[in-house]
């Protein structure tokens, strides 16, 4: 795809509207021909190319993760565009305590209201930041929303029947992790030079609907591209990492917590389903499975790609390990206390 389009984009400079629209229509026509051509002849042209079982399994996983995340991504960009276009910045100033350290727990708790999995929360928290919400609070929201919303807690209760303490432990741990990281953000210099602040996308001359449309278009294309990277990574790891290696580590508590945490990062299962997967990992202790459910919604390969895209790669390489370590520590503590 890139070889077809990039030359046309690079070749012409924005120095004339006539040339612009010609270049634009060339790129458009080329893309259209390519897409329709693939739709009509793709399978015939490439018969015999992708027949290896591993490749087909990979493709199924890759398309599966993408398709699964797509409705949630659309919901997320719809909400974030609506926040950008229709909610005045003054609303958040009034709704959240002025002091950032106090805004963090409020933002964590308000994660309850966003029913969706983690793909939706990245664009929404970026929109919150661009609307003047302090990044610490937006980060707390980013981490708590996919883990403590009613859909996720209900599915956890269904996956662990007769064990309400698992649901409570999950909610408590996820809330604690999101608050700790929000405060950690405030303590460690608020991002310094490595955090890319999502910009305010209010064009001052544009109407609200235009802002909504542009924001949604942009966010979808942007996050969608990174979702594809994340889905490819998750599919690769799913195919490459044999699940049988899990059975050898189940006995050791500390090791099993780390391993299930890593598994959650690698598998990138959406937060509404991870409880069922956790329930099926029955050779592990409840604490290790709690770690799996706490890590999954806040750090996984798909999320790291999305966050790198939204907040910058330099942010992602610091944020993901920090989140991982805090999540494992909190899971161990809460597991020891409640489970």
């Amino acid at each position, binding site marked *: 795809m890139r070889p077809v389009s990039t030359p046309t984009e690079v070749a012409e400079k924005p120095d004339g509207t006539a040339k612009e629209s010609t270049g634009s229509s060339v790129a458009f026509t080329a893309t259209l021909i390519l897409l329709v051509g693939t739709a009509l002849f793709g399978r015939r042209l490439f018969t015999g190319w992708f027949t290896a079982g591993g490749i087909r399994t990979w493709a199924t996983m890759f398309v599966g993760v993408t*398709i699964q995340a*797509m409705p949630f991504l659309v919901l997320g960009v719809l909400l974030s565009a609506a926040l950008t276009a229709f909610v005045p910045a003054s609303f958040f100033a009034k709704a959240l305590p002025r002091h950032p350290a106090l805004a963090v727990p409020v933002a964590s708790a308000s994660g309850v209201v966003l029913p969706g999995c983690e793909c939706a929360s990245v664009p929404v928290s970026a929109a919150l930041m661009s609307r003047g919400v302090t990044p610490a609070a937006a980060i707390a929201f980013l981490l708590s929303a996919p883990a403590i919303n009613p859909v996720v807690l209900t599915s956890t209760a269904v996956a662990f029947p007769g064990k309400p303490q698992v649901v409570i432990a999950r909610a408590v741990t996820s809330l604690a992790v999101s608050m700790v990281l929000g405060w950690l953000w405030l303590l460690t210099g608020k991002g310094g030079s490595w955090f890319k602040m999502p910009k305010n996308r209010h064009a001052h001359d544009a109407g609200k609907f235009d802002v909504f449309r542009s924001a949604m278009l942009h966010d979808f294309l942007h996050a969608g591209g990174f979702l594809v990277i994340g889905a490819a990574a998750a599919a690769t790891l799913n195919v490459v990492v044999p699940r049988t290696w899990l059975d050898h580590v189940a006995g050791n508590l500390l090791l099993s917590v780390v391993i299930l945490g890593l598994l959650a990062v690698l598998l990138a299962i959406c937060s509404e389903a991870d409880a069922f997967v956790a329930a099926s990992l029955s050779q592990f202790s409840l604490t290790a499975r709690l770690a799996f459910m706490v890590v999954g919604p806040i750090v996984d390969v798909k999320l790291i790609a999305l966050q790198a895209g939204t907040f910058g790669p330099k942010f992602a390489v610091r944020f993901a390990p920090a989140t991982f370590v805090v999540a494992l520590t909190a899971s161990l503590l809460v597991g020891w206390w409640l489970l």
Partner: protein
Amino acid sequence: MRRSVAALVIVFIGAAVMELATSGTYLRYVKPGMRWMLLAAGVVLIALAVTDVLVDGRKKPAQQEQPVAMPEDAWRDAPWPAGRRDEEIDHSAHADHGHGHHGLPRTAWLLLIPIFALLVIDPPALGADAAERQSPVSSKPANPKSNAWMADNSQGAPPVAVPVTDYAIWAVWQQDTMKGRRYQLTGFVTPAKNGVWYVTRIGITCCVADGTAYMVEARGQAAPPKNQWVTVTGLWAEPTKRPDGDVAALTVETLKPVAMPVNPYE
């Protein structure tokens, strides 16, 4: 990415998602419950792209090319100026990064990869290849599903159709209720070493990424071709002991090749 091209890509994604949902192909990748969410997402995407083209078509070209101050892309991560939280910061200084000249991210081209994967590879439902990567051992159920109704069936009765995902667990962990009865299972063939083969079904809770293989060792019949869907009937058999656990088994009496069910997962 140019705005018109972006709209085209989004229309294709929306159309692909809706095609999957309406044709039933989506069942290869996600749960049946996702259908309405996929349709809604497809409608929203197509509506977004169509309004964008319609509204922009009416505007003057000069206005059309004006980026509406978008956040920069990640590929070029220039350090931010000191007052970066100031909303009035000059957008133009950074607006170009990774966006070509038109304010839309280049990463959007990546969205074409899943479309090509769908159109060219046509990824099949998970089958024997995925199952071979997992262990056939039946893991202890966290919340055992009752099969008390089994007691109503006398031991000589005709075979009871049960899901492979249930049989694989019951046959190992609820042996007492299973012994001496006949069952009917439908799944695909996963061959293993030494002529052993399994009737297999993949269980998914959300999408194929969490797909778990449930495998029942079929005894007494030669293995049909890999990935062939079969319906087998037979008697409960003593589970196979392995160092890492027990594998459910069935002594096969009849074997019939069948077509893949509409929903390949359980």
